[in-house]
C-alpha cells in the first residue's frame, strides 16, 4: 500500500525530466519545422518532371511518419515510458500505418 501511495503521489510516475529543455522540446520542434518546410519545397519548388509524383508521394509518407515519430516520442513523451506501454501503443499504430500505406499503393487495382 505504501508502494502504491508513493507511486500515486507522483514520485515514481512523473520521474525526472529526460535531457535539457533544448533536447526535449526545441530540437523536436525544429525537426518538425524543417521537415514541414521540406515537404512544401518538394510540393511547390520541385517540378514533377524532375521528380515523378510517385517518388514524391513515397517521400511524403516517409517524412510524415518521421514527424509522427517525433511528436509521439518527444512531445507525448512515449519513448521515456516503460517498454510495455510503448509496445501496447506503437504495435497497433504500426499496423495501421502499414494498412494506410498499402491502401494508397494497392487500392488502384480495385478501379480495374
Amino acid at each position, binding site marked *: 500500500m505504501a508502494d502504491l501511495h508513493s507511486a500515486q503521489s507522483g514520485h515514481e510516475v*512523473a520521474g525526472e525530466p529526460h535531457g535539457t529543455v533544448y533536447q526535449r*522540446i526545441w530540437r523536436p520542434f525544429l525537426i518538425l519545422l524543417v521537415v514541414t518546410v521540406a515537404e512544401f519545397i518538394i510540393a511547390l519548388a520541385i517540378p514533377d518532371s524532375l521528380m515523378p509524383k510517385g517518388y514524391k508521394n513515397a517521400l511524403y509518407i516517409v517524412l510524415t511518419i518521421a514527424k509522427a515519430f517525433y*511528436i509521439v516520442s518527444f512531445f507525448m513523451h512515449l519513448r521515456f515510458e516503460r517498454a510495455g506501454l510503448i509496445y501496447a501503443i506503437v504495435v497497433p499504430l504500426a499496423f495501421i500505418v502499414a494498412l494506410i500505406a498499402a491502401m494508397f499503393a494497392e487500392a488502384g487495382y480495385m478501379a480495374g
Partner: protein
Amino acid sequence: MASSTPSATIETGTWAGGKLPFGASFGKLMMWFFLLSDAFTFSALLIAYAVIRQTHQAWPLPDAVFNSVPFLHGVNAPLVFVGIMTFILIMSSVTMVLAVDAGHRYDKKNVILYLVLTIIGGLTFLGCQAWEWTHMIADQGVSLSGNPFFDPNNPIYFRPDGSPTGAIQFGQLFFVITGFHGFHVFSGVIILILVLVAAIDGKYHNRGNHYEMVEKVGLYWHFVDLVWVFVFTSFYLL
C-alpha cells in the same frame, strides 16, 4: 461451522494488484488507450479516403484547390494558407509541452501562461479552418455532392446524365475528415479551458502529482497535432 480461512499465500507480483505495471497512473494509461482507439477511428476515415481516391482517376489537384489566402483575393498562392495553419498547430503543441514542463516544476504562473497560449493557438487554427471551409463552400462551390474542379475535355468528369463533376467524394471526404479533426481541436480547446480554470484555482498544485492533468490533456492535444500531420499529407500533398 468453520469460518473461511484466509488464503495462505498473497500474490505479490507486478500484476497482482496495488502496483502500476506500466509505470503510468490509471488516468494517463486510459488516456493513451483512448487515443489509440481514436487513432483507429481516424485511420478508418483515412483508409476509406485512400481507397476511394485511388479508385477514381478524376481527383482535384491540391495545388489548384488550396491556393487562396485571406486578404489576398485573386492571388494564386498554393498551399501557403495551410502552411500557416500547420505552423500554428505545431506552435500550439510546443506551448503545450512548455505548459507540461512548467507543471513538472510546480511553476503555476508558467502553466497558466502556456495554457493560455495553447488555447489561443487552437482557436486561431479553428478560425483558419472556418475561413478555409467558407472559402471552399461559398467561393469555390465545393459541396458534399460535387466540386468545380474538372476537365471539360475529359469524359471521366461527367455523370451519366451529362452534368459535370469532379470526383464527388472529394468534398465529402474533405469536409468529413477535416471536420472530424476540427471537432477534436474544438473539444481540445474546451478541455484546455476547463483545465486552465482549475489550474488558476490551484486545484492541480495541491494534488502533489506534478500537474498530471495538464500532462493528460497535453497527450490529447499532441494527438490532435499528430492527426493533422496525416490529414495534411493526405489532402494537401499527395
